[in-house]
C-alpha cells in the first residue's frame, strides 16, 4: 500500500510511509545479510524513503541500464521483467525503460545533478560565495569591492545604520544562548533564574585589562544602533584574534533577558535586550538575520 495522489490516503510524513506494515515495525528488523557486499544491509532496520539505502542509485548504471561497474551491483534494468531491480530499492520509476531516458536525479525537475543553481532557485546564486557580514572589520579578501552580499534584505528605518572600525566600533560582537535558559521565557522561571540570575557580557581578559573592566562590574556595549548594559564576565576562554594583521577582540552576549522577568522586575538589570545591538540584515535565501557577527564598542558603565 503506497500513498496515492487521489486523496484516498493520508500521511503525516511521506518519508516514513511503508516503515510499519502488516508485517510489523520494519524499523526493528535486524537482518545482517549483505548480498551485494556493498554495505547495503537491506533487512537491517528501515531506511527512508521506501527502504532505499543509496539515493539516486539509478545513476550507477549507464544509459542502457547496465551498471558501470559490474562487481558491486546496486540496481540494474532487467529486460525480462521489464523493471528496475537490484540489491537496493531502485530510486527510480520501476517500469521506466532505459530508452525513455528518464533522468536519475528524480527530485530535481531537470532530472540531472546540479553543479550550479539554476535561475531563481537562490537569490544570490548560481554559485556559493563567501561574503563578509555588513559590519566587518576588514574588506572581503576575495573581492574587496563587494565585501558583503549585494542582495541581503535591509530596511530603511532610522535604526538601520551600520558602523565601521573607523567610527570606533572596534570590537567584534556575537550573540548566543545558554544551557540554563531558553529564549525569553525562562527569565520568569525561578529554577532557571537560580542557575543564572542576571544578564552578562563575556569579555576576553586582555580586553578587560585594557578597558579597565573588572568581572562583575557593569559595562556598556554600543553599536551603531543602540546600547546594551550588563555585568562583565571576564574570561580567559575567549582569546584575542589576529585579523588582517591587526589584533581584534570578540565579546559574547547571551540573549535571554529583556523588559520583564524575575531579575528585571527586581530592578537588577538595565532592561536592555541583546538584539537592540544587532543589525537587521537578512539572508536573502534562509532569511536568517546577521545577529552573530557585528561591530560594537565596549566601556565601563
Amino acid at each position, binding site marked *: 500500500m503506497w500513498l496515492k495522489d487521489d486523496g484516498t490516503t493520508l500521511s503525516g510524513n511521506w518519508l516514513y510511509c511503508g516503515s510499519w506494515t502488516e508485517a510489523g515495525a520494519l524499523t526493528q528488523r535486524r537482518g545482517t545479510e549483505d548480498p551485494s557486499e556493498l554495505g547495503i544491509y537491506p533487512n537491517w532496520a528501515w531506511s527512508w524513503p521506501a527502504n532505499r539505502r543509496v539515493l539516486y542509485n539509478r545513476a550507477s548504471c549507464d544509459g542502457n541500464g547496465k551498471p558501470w561497474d559490474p562487481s558491486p551491483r546496486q540496481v540494474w534494468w532487467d529486460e525480462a521483467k521489464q523493471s528496475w531491480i537490484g540489491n537496493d530499492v531502485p530510486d527510480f520509476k520501476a517500469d521506466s525503460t532505459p530508452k525513455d531516458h528518464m533522468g536519475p536525479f528524480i527530485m530535481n525537475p531537470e532530472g540531472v545533478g546540479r553543479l550550479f543553481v539554476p535561475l531563481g532557485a537562490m537569490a544570490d546564486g548560481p554559485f556559493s560565495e563567501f561574503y563578509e557580514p555588513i559590519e566587518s572589520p576588514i574588506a572581503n579578501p576575495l573581492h574587496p569591492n563587494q565585501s558583503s552580499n549585494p542582495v541581503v534584505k535591509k530596511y530603511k528605518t532610522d535604526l538601520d545604520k551600520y558602523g565601521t572600525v573607523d567610527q570606533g566600533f572596534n570590537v567584534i560582537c556575537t550573540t548566543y544562548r545558554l*544551557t*540554563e535558559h531558553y529564549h525569553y521565557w525562562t527569565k520568569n522561571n*525561578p*529554577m532557571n533564574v*537560580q542557575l543564572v*540570575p*542576571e544578564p552578562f557580557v563575556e569579555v576576553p581578559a586582555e580586553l578587560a585589562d585594557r578597558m579597565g573592566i573588572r568581572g562583575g562590574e557593569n559595562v556598556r556595549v554600543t553599536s551603531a544602533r543602540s546600547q546594551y548594559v550588563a*555585568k562583565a564576565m571576564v574570561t*580567559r576562554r575567549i582569546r584575542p584574534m589576529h585579523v588582517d594583521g591587526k589584533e581584534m577582540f570578540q565579546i559574547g552576549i547571551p540573549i535571554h533577558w529583556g523588559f520583564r522577568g524575575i531579575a528585571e522586575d527586581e530592578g537588577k538589570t538595565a532592561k536592555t535586550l541583546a538584539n537592540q545591538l544587532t543589525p537587521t540584515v537578512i539572508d536573502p535565501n534562509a532569511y536568517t538575520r546577521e545577529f552573530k557577527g557585528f561591530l560594537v564598542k565596549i566601556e565601563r558603565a
Partner: protein
Amino acid sequence: MSDRRTLQVKQMSGHSGEAPGFGVQREPEVCKLIDTTICIGCKACEVACVEWNDMPFGPTTFDNTYQTMPETRWNFWNLIKFNEHQREDGTVQWLMRKDQCMHCADPGCLRACPADGAIVQYVNGIVDFQQENCIGCEFCVSGCPYDIPKFNPATKKVYKCTLCSDRVGQGLEPACIKACPTGCLKFGTKEDMKYIAEERAKQLRENFGFAQAGVYDPQSIGGTHVVYVLHDASDPERYGGLPKDPVIPWSYTVWKWLAKPVLGTLSLMGLAGVLMHYVSVGPRRPQPEPPLKEGTDVHRG
C-alpha cells in the same frame, strides 16, 4: 530523606554499642562515578537534585563565573564548580567538577557528631543525616574535610547530599545520574565503578595525551563512595579546590577516641572514689569552726 527500612546501617554517630540489626543483611558498596573529562557543565544534575528533594529556590547573584553559587547550601546539595585553569603554555583548560558529599568510608561528619543517630552510615557506603536526631551543633560542618554539610538557621538542622538513599533503597539510581545527558555520571557497585574509572583514566593517558590522568579515591579517609576521573590526578586542587589528601581534623579524633574514653573513665573512677569514700570513711562530718582572729567583731551562734 533516607530509607532505613531497606538500607542496612553500618555505624551511627554518638551511639554506644553496635548499630541495630547489624550483620542482618549483606549489601554491595555503591559508588557514584563522575568523569570530569566528559562533563559539559550543563547543570542538569543540579536541577534534578533540587527537584527530587523538593528544595526551595534561593537567591543567587552574578559572580563572574558560570558557577551557580560559591558553595553548596542547605537547600542546594550539588554544585558544578568551574575553573579556568591556565596551563604553562598559556592555553586555557575549562575544568568542571560536580561537587557534593563524597560519602567517605571514614566519615568526618559522623566522627564529629555527638548526637545519637543524627548521622548514619549504611553498609552500602551512603552517609545520611537523620535530621530528627540532629541537635544543630554544627560539629559535622567542621569535621568534614570537603566543607559539605550546611546549616539552616531556620530549622537549626544540617543538610547535604543523601546519595538519594531513598531512591537507592528502592533499587533506583540517584536523581543526578538519571538526569545527566552525557553519561559522565555513572552509578553501580564500587568495584564496577572503580574498574570503569581506571579504564577511562588509562584511555586518557594512552590515547588522549593526558599523561597525569587518574582516579580520585583518597585513601587518607579510607576511600570515598563518590569517585572522580580527572585529567590531572596529581593536582586535584585545580578542580574547584578538591583536597588532595583529605583528613578529618585531628581534634575530633582526639576528642572521640582519646579524650572521651579517658576522661569518661577518669570521671567514672572519680565517682567510684567518692562513693567508696562515703561507704568506708563516712559522710561529711560537721567541721569545727576556725578560731576567731583578735579584734574582730563578729556575732557567733
